[in-house]
């Protein structure tokens, strides 16, 4: 019983500990990635924050980063530099820089730099070494013209923060450039002639939402709280879901443990029923009995509390340690007290239930065993004239202890559901990550695609700056470790329509919020909704979207489009801008191009190569979803609405419920499309190349996206006269990558593609491995704990039943039952209880795994049968061993001892 109490207290007190750990860890992950501030204002020296402070629009003090200069590696690109500055105390508190190596600067000319800034500047400086940079000194919003050399001693490498913030959303990239990623000592003076720029960090008082924006333009604000709220892919969101899950599971564990306590106390009091009867017979009142036995329980609680709470604390601390630095478990005094109290209260309440029940019995009821008479009162017992003793006895015992056994079955069912879901989730994670990539490195360059006019390809970039050339491809192939390199080209094409662009493609244009590839400046519409103005509340934004989406979307003609039509001589036609993806025919394996995803037609490589045909990605029905965000801005998406389309995740489903416009595809296999390739030679000379192609196949049967695209082979693209460089290189190694090989390859590729981001799949897998490790530990701990609790409860129940039936066991032994027959009888009982629990648990798991998985893990969990079998085997073995040991203990005693002890 003591072990049961310790376990129950451990799990009960673990509830506040775990919640505290998950909460602080969630916050810590958020703080480490993005800082503690909710809002960042760049060029803050231009604004007066006194009024919002006075009016309570800002919560607490404002912290400032004092930006001194923009610095870059003297031998490398200017654009790959970073701002240098220092944080005042409040800014340090809010921006929360994390030192991953070394320390923060303490002396003049010492510097600590964020990891990605170091990489961007291609500095291989070690800690303690000098770093010399070129710098432009800040002059408020601008810089002084003269370049200066600055030298610092690198004393610390910081975890990325600025780079994380700039990846919040597209607009943040330009804003975040003003945030320093390199820090010098506090109070460092700016060079003579310069003027510090300021970056403000603060939290807003949400009651005064929107006030700040009337004074500070949206273009100078980075609303980090918006990102925390909507971020759905990072660990912050994952852990946010987990807080709810952990709370639910902790409470469930505590409940199960408490149930164990009720069982243990029940069995303990049953053994002492005669004693209670005697006390009642000599005049003890119900209150006195509850006091006597309740006090006993309380004393046991107090005695076991230190051990239980220590175990609980240790378990959560161990969990946090295993999970890594971001997992923080520093419970304050209140959490500790809450843990102790919750533990004691749970155990006391659990112990009082059987105590209340037993104290209600009359003295004679307690002294005489009339329980059996009560139980059989409503049960029809039919005498059997021939029976298997083991089976018959088990059946009768089950009949007389139905209520108790149902509770055990419920516990087993809970264990099966939680454990199977956890293992299925783990299984799906492992399966999904195991075969994710076939390549080892990827290098991207979208410079050509992202030129100023979205309808015209920028040949000056192609001819001068594009790094992914055929020559470079050959250079990569010459690296001895490389097996092959695959290229992909992305080019802007326009489909020419004699009349209006089909509704289907207009809906595609709606989704071009952040680019200028549409005939209309939808980005301006986005800004109009998001930036300051009269009555720009959340409901107003939503109303605008709902009332007349098309009118708003097409309100502003795109000057680039008007210009393009004019210079390319398309006065009477309309152009629909589309991205064409071209891959080598031998590697024609786009994600979307699989046999399953073809809606109509077939892929004929020869016709693609000859330029006669193209493939289009055009689901049969698409929908545009758009809604205003409570925190500002708009969320939108273009979805495949065909019934076969895969739904990626929960947020996808939510957006799909807010479809504002939809259309059916007008395209058929064999239709002819007129394509025009427009190119600017860099001197304003526009070339136009028209081509008629047939639709060879239509893709997009089951993919989630609704964005229209064109696919062809590299050879097919080459049928246009203009030659383009690559947008993506995928590199495959001869051997499996290792840490050493990765280092060599990164160095080789960096020398061929200076300044380009090289995506290493090995690196990605390493971080995946780490995440998987954390997940395996978490899930294994969860399953382990649930199994332990379940085994402990089942075994408690078995032990209690064996203790209760010791005299019967003695009698059976006396009349000739062997140990094997005794064990068999209990096995049949346990098998019945377990099968009921397993049956119920498995059915619930199999029927509702999608729903429960969504609640528990925030994602759909694919079904797996093996966890049910695994849990069954583990529970069965554990219970069998316990049963054998318990019966062995009984049979080790003499029959007389069995009979007499009761």
């Amino acid at each position, binding site marked *: 019983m003591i072990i049961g109490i310790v376990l129950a207290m451990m799990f009960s007190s673990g509830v506040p500990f775990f919640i505290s750990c998950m909460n602080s860890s969630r916050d810590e992950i958020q703080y480490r990635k993005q800082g503690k501030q909710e809002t960042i204002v760049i060029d803050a020296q231009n604004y007066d924050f006194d009024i919002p402070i006075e009016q309570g629009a800002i919560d607490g003090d404002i912290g400032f980063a004092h930006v001194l200069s923009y610095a870059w590696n003297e031998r490398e690109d200017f654009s790959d530099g970073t701002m240098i500055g220092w944080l005042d105390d409040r800014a340090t508190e809010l921006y929360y820089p994390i030192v991953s190596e070394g320390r923060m600067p303490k002396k003049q000319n010492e510097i600590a730099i964020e990891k990605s800034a170091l990489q961007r500047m291609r500095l291989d400086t070690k800690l303690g070494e000098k770093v010399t940079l070129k710098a432009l000194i800040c002059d408020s919003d601008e810089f002084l013209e003269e370049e200066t050399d600055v030298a610092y001693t690198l004393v610390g490498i910081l975890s990325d923060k600025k780079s994380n913030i700039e990846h919040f959303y597209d607009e943040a990239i330009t804003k975040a450039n003003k945030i320093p990623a390199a820090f010098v000592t506090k109070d460092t003076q700016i060079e003579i002639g310069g003027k510090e720029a300021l970056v403000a960090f603060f939290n807003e008082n949400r009651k005064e939402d929107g006030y700040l924006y009337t004074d500070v333009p949206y273009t100078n604000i980075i609303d980090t709280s918006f990102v925390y709220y909507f971020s759905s892919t990072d660990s912050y969101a994952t852990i946010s879901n987990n807080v709810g899950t952990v709370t639910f599971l902790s409470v469930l564990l505590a409940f199960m443990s408490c149930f164990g306590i009720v069982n243990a106390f029940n069995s303990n009091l049953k053994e002492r029923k005669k004693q209670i009867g005697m006390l009642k017979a000599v005049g003890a009142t119900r209150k006195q009995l509850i006091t006597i036995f309740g006090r006993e329980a309380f004393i046991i609680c107090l005695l076991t509390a230190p051990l239980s709470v220590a175990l609980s604390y240790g378990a959560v601390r161990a969990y946090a340690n295993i999970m890594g630095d971001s997992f923080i478990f520093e419970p304050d005094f209140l959490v500790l007290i809450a843990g102790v109290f919750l533990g004691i209260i749970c155990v006391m309440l659990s112990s009082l239930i059987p105590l209340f029940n037993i104290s209600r019995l009359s003295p004679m009821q307690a002294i005489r065993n009339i329980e059996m008479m009560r139980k059989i009162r409503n049960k029809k*017992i039919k005498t059997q004239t*021939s029976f298997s*003793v083991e089976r*018959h006895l088990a059946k009768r015992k089950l009949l007389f202890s139905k209520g108790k056994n149902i509770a055990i079955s419920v516990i087993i069912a809970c264990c099966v559901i939680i454990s199977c879901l956890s293992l299925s989730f783990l299984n799906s994670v492992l399966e999904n990550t195991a075969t994710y990539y076939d390549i080892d490195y990827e290098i991207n360059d979208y410079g050509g695609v992202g030129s100023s006019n979205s309808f015209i390809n920028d040949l000056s970039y192609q001819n001068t700056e594009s790094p992914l050339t055929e020559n470079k491809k050959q250079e990569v192939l010459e690296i001895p470790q490389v097996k092959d390199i695959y290229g992909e080209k992305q080019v802007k094409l326009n489909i020419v329509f004699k009349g209006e662009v089909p509704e289907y493609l207009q809906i595609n244009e709606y989704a071009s919020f952040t680019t200028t590839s549409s005939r209309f400046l939808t980005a301006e519409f986005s800004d109009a909704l998001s930036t300051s103005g009269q009555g720009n509340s959340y409901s107003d934004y939503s109303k605008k979207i709902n009332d007349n989406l098309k009118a708003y979307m097409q309100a502003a003609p795109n000057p680039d489009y008007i210009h393009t039509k004019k210079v390319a001589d398309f006065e009477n036609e309309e152009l629909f801008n589309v991205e064409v993806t071209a891959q080598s025919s031998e590697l024609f394996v786009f994600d979307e191009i699989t046999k399953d995803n073809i809606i109509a037609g077939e892929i004929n490589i020869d016709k693609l190569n000859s330029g006669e045909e193209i493939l289009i990605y055009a689901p049969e029905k698409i929908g545009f979803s758009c809604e205003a965000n409570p925190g500002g801005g708009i969320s939108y998406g273009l979805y495949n609405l065909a019934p076969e389309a895969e739904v990626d995740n929960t947020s996808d489903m939510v957006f799909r419920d807010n479809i504002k416009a939809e259309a059916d595809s007008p395209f058929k296999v064999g239709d002819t499309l007129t394509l025009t390739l427009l190119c600017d030679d860099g001197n304003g000379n526009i070339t136009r190349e028209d081509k008629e192609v047939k639709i060879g196949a239509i893709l997009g049967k089951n993919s989630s996206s609704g964005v229209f695209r064109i696919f062809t082979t590299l050879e097919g693209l080459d049928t246009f006269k203009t030659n383009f460089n690559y947008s993506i290189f995928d590199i495959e190694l001869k051997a499996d990558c290792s840490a050493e090989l990765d280092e060599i390859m990164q160095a080789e590729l960096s020398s061929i593609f200076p300044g380009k981001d090289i995506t290493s799949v090995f690196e990605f897998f390493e971080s995946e491995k780490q995440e998987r490790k954390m997940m395996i530990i978490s899930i294994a701990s969860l399953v382990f704990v649930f199994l332990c609790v379940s085994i402990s409860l089942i075994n408690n129940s078995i032990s209690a039943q064996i203790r209760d039936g010791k005299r019967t066991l003695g009698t059976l032994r*006396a*009349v000739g*039952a062997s140990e094997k027959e005794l064990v068999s009888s209990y096995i049949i009982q346990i098998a019945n209880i377990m099968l009921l629990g397993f049956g119920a648990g498995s059915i619930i798991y199999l029927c509702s795994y999608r729903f429960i998985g969504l609640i528990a893990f925030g994602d759909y969990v694919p079904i797996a049968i093996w966890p049910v079998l695994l849990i069954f085997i583990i529970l069965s073995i554990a219970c069998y061993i316990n049963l054998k040991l318990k019966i062995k203990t009984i049979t080790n005693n003499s*029959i*007389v001892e069995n009979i007499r002890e009761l």
Partner: protein
Amino acid sequence: MNIIECKNLTKEYLSGENTVVALNDVSLEFEKGEFCAITGPSGSGKSTFLHVLSSLENATSGEVIYNNESLKNYNDNQLSILRRRRFGFVFQAYNLVEELTGYENILLPIMLDKKKPDEEYLKKIIDILGIEDRLSHLPSALSGGQQQRIAIARALANKPSILFADEPTGNLDGKSGREVLSLLKYVSKELGVTLILVTHDLHVAEQADRVIRIEDGAVVEDSKFNQ
């Protein structure tokens, strides 16, 4: 002809740091069909003797010989089979299995032996014991006397060679006690079963063919009567 005998039986218990000698070098022989009463004051060791003799408990030293074979050579399983086939037990506290009805309790040793019950024989015992109308009841619905009759029927169900009875009338009123005793005596004579009975009641002992008196774990008197 001896059916069971014991040689130099000693049983010691540990009570704290002290050793209590419950049986001290007891050697006895019992003939087939004999009705033997073992008497003695409380705590003399008479029940311990019965338990050790019937293999319900192990002796510290010495041996029990049944049908010329020492029980020391029997393993747990063999002892279980011996108990279910050759021995019958009647306890002071009846010790019926609460979950089984009266008839099922009677059938218990037969069913453990996976044999078909001899219906005629069982009917005869049930008739003798007068429990026909109580067979379908659970023990908790029976009086002490009725429970003890069921226990006697169970002890005799497998046609044992020896019936061990430990204070079988101890929990019964005078009338029920007398009835149970005469039943025991009758069935043992009728069925040719050796009856070894522990009692501290002299009136009970008087009815035995042989009375053994035990004091402080040792046999102090062994008298045979011709009745």
